[in-house]
């Protein structure tokens, strides 16, 4: 599927901001079957952006604003051919392989809890239960199933800073929370896992040329002999409706817009994503 994506994000301030420094992660890359035909990023007030690739392989645009402004808006426009869904690896290995020293060492930072995916005793016990007697692939399936059965999709209950343990306690949340809890459970079950951010085209049979309101989306990569992208919000393998932008240990490694500023306090954060099917 070829998609045109417009992602607008930024801040409104209560008064004038005189300086700000920002990092934007809004740029899909051509990886794993995904093909990026065009991408540009525009900042208002107009400034130059400095692109680089971060530790996780994500494109980061850095920019700083030194003119007084009351509003900062960053727009990323992408033209992407999405990748088809790839299921779990054929002849996926068992936990004997996943728990081998070299494998554990290679994925050390994706097995260790991060600040938003720290496991408490409840998470650990649940992970142990879900994994008992299962292969790694089955464990992934059971974790996703459990999360979907027990956590309700609801906005406004959690915030951008809610960790996995908070999601488990609240039993409600949005895609970010589903992904964090899934990642935390998988890691506690000794399956290497990472948090993925990007976009989801909302319809399975959307009309070509019609733009749809969307939002940024989050899902999960699990490693079971090879990477397998699964979307705990929908319960499906991530496929041609998913556009991958970044992955990392948790949301903090992939935040679409982060930065610091000096001046009046911020009033609101705006996010608007618009997706148009091109083919």
């Amino acid at each position, binding site marked *: 599927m070829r998609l045109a994506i417009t992602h607008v994000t930024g801040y409104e301030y209560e008064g004038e901001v005189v300086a700000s420094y920002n990092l934007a992660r809004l740029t899909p890359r051509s990886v794993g079957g995904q093909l990026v035909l065009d991408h540009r990023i525009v900042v208002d007030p107009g400034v130059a952006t400095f692109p680089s690739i971060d530790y996780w392989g994500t494109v980061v645009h850095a920019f700083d604003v030194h003119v007084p402004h009351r509003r900062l808006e960053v727009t990323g426009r992408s033209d992407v051919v999405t990748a088809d869904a790839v299921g779990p690896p054929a002849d996926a290995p068992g936990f004997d392989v996943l728990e081998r020293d070299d494998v554990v060492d290679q994925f050390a930072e994706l097995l260790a809890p991060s600040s938003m995916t720290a496991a408490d005793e409840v998470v650990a016990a649940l992970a142990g239960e879900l994994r008992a007697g299962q292969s790694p692939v089955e464990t992934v399936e059971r974790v996703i199933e459990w999360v979907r059965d027990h956590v309700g999709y609801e906005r406004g209950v959690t915030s951008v800073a809610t960790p996995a343990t908070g999601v488990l306690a609240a039993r409600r949340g949005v895609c970010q929370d589903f992904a964090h809890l899934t990642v935390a459970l998988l890691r506690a079950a000794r399956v290497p896992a990472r948090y993925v951010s990007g976009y989801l085209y909302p319809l399975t049979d959307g009309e070509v040329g019609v733009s749809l309101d969307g939002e940024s989306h989050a899902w999960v990569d699990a490693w079971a002999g090879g990477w397998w992208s699964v979307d705990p919000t929908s319960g499906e393998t991530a496929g041609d409706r998913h556009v991958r932008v970044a992955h990392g240990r948790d949301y903090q490694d992939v935040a679409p817009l982060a930065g*610091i500023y*000096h001046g009046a306090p911020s009033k609101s954060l705006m996010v608007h994503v618009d997706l148009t099917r091109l083919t």
Partner: protein
Amino acid sequence: MLSRIAESLYWIGRYVERAEDTARILDVHFHLLVEDRGAEAAESYRTLLRAMGLPSAVDAMDGQAVAALLTHNDTFSGSIATSLTSAWDNARGAREVISSELWECLNVTHRSLGSWDRYGAAPHEFLRWVKERAAMAAGLVDTTMSRDEGWRFLVLGRSVERADMTVRLLSARYGERWGAAGWRVLLRCCSAHEAFLRRHHGMVQPSLALEFLLTDSTFPRSVLFALREAETCVVALSAAAGPDRGGDAGRVLGRAAAELSYASIAEIDRELGDRLAELEAACNAAHEAVTRRFFRASVPIEWSA
């Protein structure tokens, strides 16, 4: 030169000069009144404190209390101890720009302040020490530092403070009618007594004394001299940025100096109150213009995420 460092140097110049001036003025007053215990004592202290920017708070103060306030009070920003500590504090942050000799001088001065806690009934020893230390600092500024930006900021601070102090001394006395004795005190406060006597061969006439303190072009503590020195510094400091002769700061200082130098003493005397108020305003305006031009934007910034 870094704006922050330039600002520190400017303030070192001001604070050292302020400590020295305060010491001299206090020394003169204190000993004058010990000598001549007239009924004017209270009034005399009031005048002194007015010059220091403390108009009314002091009705019930005797000489010792005033001396204590002006020497060691560390909550009063005009006290000698506060000035010397502030000079040291600024020097600490500018240590790699000032000469080691100057740093050591300010450091030793600051460190020794504590040992003067009890000077007993005779502050003279302490005041003399302050004057000596300040003279030493001034001498080291002139003998150990290149005539570069750093030196100019130090001299600029010193000159602005000096002009300001002399004007304020005169203002504090304005409105009183005093005779030769009063003028003698004032001349002494500015270290100008002997220079004045040599110039005018012994006769202390009020208009001559006023002229000397305001417009003498050779005596370094006259207001005109100090203003011209400050103007020279500002013009030189601005030279690298463009031929604007110091911008606002240069304009304010140059105009004040020109008005002083082209006015007759009779004119000045006639409108003395207004003239002194204008000069005081000019010193403040010069300070603000210097700050705007050279020191802007070097405050720590608090960032929000």
